[in-house]
Every structure is written in C-alpha cells, then in structure tokens.
C-alpha cells in the first residue's frame, strides 16, 4: 500500500510539473498576477517587463527554458549562480504552492509578446563596434573575449530589458550593475568605483568586487585584484560614479546603439 501510494505521488507530481492545468484561462491568469506582484515583481517589474534585477519575461524566449515545465522548474528551483532564488527561500515574496506557480505561469503567458520582436539593429555591426571602435571589450567580455573590469555581458541581453540596456550605455551611473551575490544576503554587491591609498602611499582606482565593514576586495584598472583591511588604508573612497564612460549620442549614435543591443541579444541567444 505504501509503495503504491508513493508511486502514485511521484506519478502525480511529475504530471503536475509538465503541463499547466490552467493554460489560457484568464481567471487563473488574474490570480497569477496577484502572486506575481507578491513574489516576482520585485525583480521582474510590474507587468513582467523586467527591471534592474530580473529579465523581461514578456519575451517569448526565456533563457532557462521557455516551455511550461521549464518555467515551473525555474520558479521552483531557482537558477543556480544567479539572483533567481528557489520558490519559498530567502528571496522576495512569501513562497507559492504548485497551484500558485501554475497561476503565475498562466499570467506570464498572458503578457508574453507573441510576435517576434522586430529586428531592431544590425548585430554583426554591433559586434564590430563592441570589439572595435566603441571599445566595450576593453572592460567587458562577451563569449570569453574582452576585459574583466566590468560585468561579463554574454547573457545580459537575455537578463535585462532593452530600456535597461539603453540606460546602461547612455547613463551608466544611473543604476550600477550587480556583482557578487551571496546566498543569504539580500542585495548583490554593485559595481561601485573605489579609490584607495595604502599605508605605504600606493594609490589604486578600480571597482569593488566585494566589501564588508572591515575588508575590501577590489580590481584595479590593470585587472589586478587587491585584498585590503580598511583599517590599514591611508584613505578609502567609494563612489557611485561608474568607471564606465557616458556613451552619449556623439560618442555612439542611436543607430549604433541599436546595433550594439542587437549584438547583445544575439550573443545571449547563442550562448545556450
């Protein structure tokens, strides 16, 4: 009896995780919207359009799988190595039942943009710009090529919405990118700028890799990693003025920016 019961349980749960029992039902999509606001919108934004912390979920293509079962798994288990927490863990929200997760998936389906986004730029030209005249690769990597001072942008096209990408280029200090994310910590370390002077007078400028009240881990402009005790430094100053230059329309035309973003989107799609 026990064995039969266990088998039934697994059979039932497997089935439940493959297929959305509420698919296309507007009533459940609305219930899902409530759950979405509580559990998901903090990072994925109102309307699931993404924000500074999570991807735009109105895109039909999802980086960690676009099928119902994929979404269920992503929500239940989270995405290791990213800020996406498993359902009901320390992350935002109250946690959801399986039923509520399916409601959220129903909601996400209801806001997805069905027709593929218009090709908005020339990805090939964007790639030339990235590794060439725009000099993005001095500090950023895509596909394992480029610099280390700024965030690796290989998957950024999938992880952020277009508005965010535009803002990050035009006004990089507006919202700093997220760096190391610790399991039990609420907020990721951001790419803050730091200037230090050591006790023996050496000066370094770079980005904060991580810090706490007592120590600093930083990378300087020459990609050297330094580990400091704050109390041992002669001076220490952090700033939210990004080390990344502002790419205004003179430095990068609107058209070139579109091409660059098309390249980032294509790179993210290719990276799977």
């Amino acid at each position, binding site marked *: 009896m026990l064995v039969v019961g266990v088998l039934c349980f697994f059979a039932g749960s497997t089935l439940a995780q493959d297929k959305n029992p509420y698919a296309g039902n507007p009533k459940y999509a609305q*219930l899902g919207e*409530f*759950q979405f*606001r*509580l559990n998901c*919108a*903090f990072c994925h*934004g*109102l309307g699931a359009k993404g*924000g500074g912390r999570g991807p735009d979920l109105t895109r039909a293509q999802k980086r960690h799988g676009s099928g119902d079962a994929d979404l269920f798994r992503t929500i239940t288990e989270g995405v290791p190595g990213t800020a996406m927490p498993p359902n*009901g*863990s*320390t992350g935002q929200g*109250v*946690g*959801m*039942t399986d039923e*509520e997760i399916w409601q959220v998936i129903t909601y996400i389906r209801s806001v997805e943009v069905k027709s593929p986004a218009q090709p908005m730029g020339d990805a090939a030209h964007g790639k030339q710009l990235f590794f060439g005249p725009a000099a993005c690769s001095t500090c950023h990597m895509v596909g394992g090529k480029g610099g280390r001072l700024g965030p690796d942008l290989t998957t950024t096209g999938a992880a952020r919405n277009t508005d965010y990408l535009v803002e990050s280029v035009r006004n990089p*200090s*507006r*919202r700093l990118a997220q760096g190391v994310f*610790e*399991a*039990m*910590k*609420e*907020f990721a370390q*951001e790419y803050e700028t730091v200037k230090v002077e050591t006790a023996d007078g050496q000066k370094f400028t770079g980005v904060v890799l991580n*810090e*706490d*009240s*007592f120590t600093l881990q930083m990378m300087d402009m020459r990609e050297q990693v330094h580990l400091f005790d704050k109390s041992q430094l002669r001076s220490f100053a952090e700033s*939210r003025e990004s080390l990344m230059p502002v790419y205004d329309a003179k430095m990068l035309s609107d058209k070139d920016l579109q091409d660059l973003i098309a390249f980032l989107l294509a790179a993210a799609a290719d990276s799977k």
Partner: protein
Amino acid sequence: MRAAGMKILRVSLVAAMVAFSHLLVAAAAEAQVTAQRLLDSAKEPQNWLMYSGDYSGHRYSTLDQINTSNAGSVVPKWAYQTMAGGKFETTPLVVDGVLYATGQDNRVFALDARTGRPIWQYQRALPGDIRPCCGRINRGVAILGDKVFFGTLDAHVIALDTKTGNVVWDETAFDYRQGYSITLAPLAVKNLVIVGVSGGEYGIRGFIDAYDAATGERKWRFYTVPGPGEPGHETWEGDSWKVGGAPAWMTGTYDPATDTTFWTTGNPSPSNRGAGREGDNLYSNSLLALDPSSGKLKWYFQFTKHDEHDWDATQVPVMIDQGEKHLIAQANRNGFFYVLDRTTGKLEYSTSYAKTTWSNSKDAEGRPAALPTASPTPEGTRVCPGALGATNWMAPTYDPQTQLFYVTAREQCDVFSTAPQPYEAGHAYYGSAYFPNDDAVPFWGALRAIDPATGKIKWEWKHPSPSWSGVLSTAGGLVFTGDAEGNFIALEAATGKALWHFQCGASVYASPMSYAVNGKQYVVIAAGSALFAFGLP
C-alpha cells in the same frame, strides 16, 4: 581481611550510592525551572532563561568577563551545525550548562553549552503544504518545569521533555491550511505558556493564546481582531474583521509589579490595500497590555492606524524605568521611536529614528499622523520607510549601565502599489505589492543607540547593507550585533567603536545572547546553518 575488605567495600558502595542519589536529586532539582526562577532571572546571570533574557525585554546580560578591555581577544569556542538551509533566527536558552535552541524546519535541540555537543535533537514531521510566509524559521523555545515549549510552522504548540526531547504534549492552535503558523519563542509566565500567531500575509484573524504548561490545555485566547459585540469591532468595515490579520508573531514581555504581559501585533490584512477595511482596524499594529491569568485587555496603544504599508508593531516592547517613571519603549517598524507609560498606556513622546516620509505632524495624543499622500496607489507611491520597515523582528536591547536603547535600523524606501484582490483561504493576501525605489543610493542600515530619555540618537554604527541581526548588551560595556555581510561584531556600548569581529560566512538573521558555564562567559549567535559560541581564549 577479606571479610573486612568486603565490608569496607560495601560501606563505601552504600556511601557512594547515597552520594550519587543526592547528586541525582540535586541535578533533578536544578533542572526544574520554576516560575519563581523566571521571575528572579537576575539572580542567575549564568543562565539565559527566556527569549529576551528576562521579562523586561532588555536582552542585557550582567556577565562582564568579556568586556571592553579584552573583547579584542575573543575567539570561537564551538559551532553546532543544523545542516539546514534558509534563515536561522533562533535565540538559544541556557539552563545550568544545557543550551536549548530551535533550527529551520522546526528542529529543536539540546546541547552541552561548554562544547556544542548535542544531548538530544528533535525535528517535527511537517506537512508538505504549510504556509510559512517568510521562510521555514523559528525563533526559539520557552522553558518551565521540566519542559521546553515551541510553536510550529503548522500552528501547533508543543512541549518537549528537557532531558530527552520527547513530546510531552502537542496542541493544535489553528488550522495551518488557512495560513496560520507560529514562529516566535513562547513566553512562560506563572503556569502558562503564552504564544502569538503568524500569518498576516494570508488574511488570518490574529490571536494570542495561553496554554497550561503542565497539560497543554488552552486557558485563554485573545483575538487581536475583535468580533461582533466586542469593543473595537466598529473599527472594521463590513466583514473585513474576519480576515483582518493583526498577527502577534513576536515574543511579549511581562511586568510582575502590575501583573501585566505586553504583546505586540502586526499589519491588518490585506497589508497594501485599505479599501474594504475602512477604520482604524484595531488591534492591528498595537501594543496590548493583557492580564496573563485571564487574557483580558487592560489597555492598548495603536502605533499605526489603518496601516497600508505592512508596518507591523511586532518589535519586542522593552520596559524601562526612569526614576518614578515606569515606561515601555518600542522602535517601531514605521520609523518612529515611542515611549509610553506602561501603567496607563499613555504616550510620553514619539520621535523618528530613521528616515520617514509618511508623517509630518502629530495627532492630539502626540502620535505621528499619516499623510493621505502616503497611501499606496495603483501606479505606486514612494514612501519611507519601505515595506520591511525601519526595523523588523530583530531584537533591540536596553543597557541599564549606559541607559541607552540599541536598535538595528534600516534605511530603505519602497514604492507601494495597491490593487483589489479577492480573499482565498490559505492564499497570500496582500492587495498588491511593493517595489524597491529607483534612488541612486543603495539601501543601508545602522545600529543606532537611542537615549530613551530624549529620543536623541547618541551614536550609530553603519552597516554596508541592511542587517537582520538583533542586539545584545552586556555589563562588560559591550553591545554585540551581526550584519548582512556575515560579521558578528562587538562594539563599545558607550561610543559605538568596533572592538572585535568574526566572519561567520553567512548573513546574520538572529538575536545574540550570553551565558556562562564553569565560570566562563560565552556569547552566541546563529548564522547560516550554524550556531557559533565565542569566549575568551
């Protein structure tokens, strides 16, 4: 010789047996934590007999072996691993060398307080469909007689045998499937075990319960949302009281002088939507003064009327005596520090201790009055403090030596939105949500030392990001706290100067305590899945 030898042996055996039985009696007598011992907790500073250390809510230890002169040399003495994930929010108790604490997923364990070695371990078999809002957490046990008491994520109250961890009694407080759970450490008063319920995210009807410690029989229940015919019922629109929330999810305090127990309550439900529950919504976000024997309400004070921002008042209410004044203080989640006369419930004063934008005036009683523009809107309204509050459940401390009140503060503003939401039993019921504001400056936190005589902040220790650690003060002139970066820190209580720190490897979501065994002082904090004990080398 032989016979004589046998006789001697027999005599010494008898003597040994007599001595041994005396030892047993002595040990058994010591194991009994009487109600009188709880009242006299100050007489046994080596022990930590309840969640806040004593009935006043001070979270202050009179131990001073670890002090400002030697704090820099403190070292880890032992660690105990639960191996469980999620937030580890417990404050242990220590009685005569045995430490009792709870872990994630309703673990309870007893350890040798010298070494961290387990004596027994218990874990409740929880149903698969429990509805804990904010993690599978628990904050600790209460002790009375030969039992420890704790509440469960499926809303039971359970008594365990202190010697074995065996279940002595198990009472259902409420049906967990409707969103009820218990996360606080109970408070033992007289022969009663007092608990409050969590579940303000699910449209519960909050209550505070008292159970007979010996039998588990429920002696009284105080509903924090009054029913028809009861005073305060008129502060709820229509049937909204039935799902009105007002959970009581943090441990109360007790004043033996007036035989009054003080309990605090959380948000009205749904938390972000006031439409549909017009009125003050008593007794949400309130301090309640109850008769512990009957559960009758003596007086109440509501900090936030008709709350729409999830500003629970569930911070441990701390009793402070200033000359002839018998006060009770709370640094509230809404960003204001309140000092009340604890005999009458009358407000002495209120003043902000963190950034607040929701009020710019006081009402006739001196309580901050809400600006109508602070209410959530469909598009969202930016308000400080944010939904997690200017502080939260992490315990404050009051140090009678410095006469300062120390609290972990959070500087975060949020954008609050509102949307109509139908109530469905057991499902989250917020009436919308909140989002981080778009400010350039990231959120941060601080440990703030407030002078309760004036409300002025004497010093602050800035945390790089908001901390979820409570605070302990000690007669050694120290305050201990943790941070989100994983440090456990000792600060000079008078100045806020950091004297020592230890990296625990995970954000601290717990409130520290201190005890002594064999004349050695320990300070304990939970972080990650480990309990760490520190002492002098």
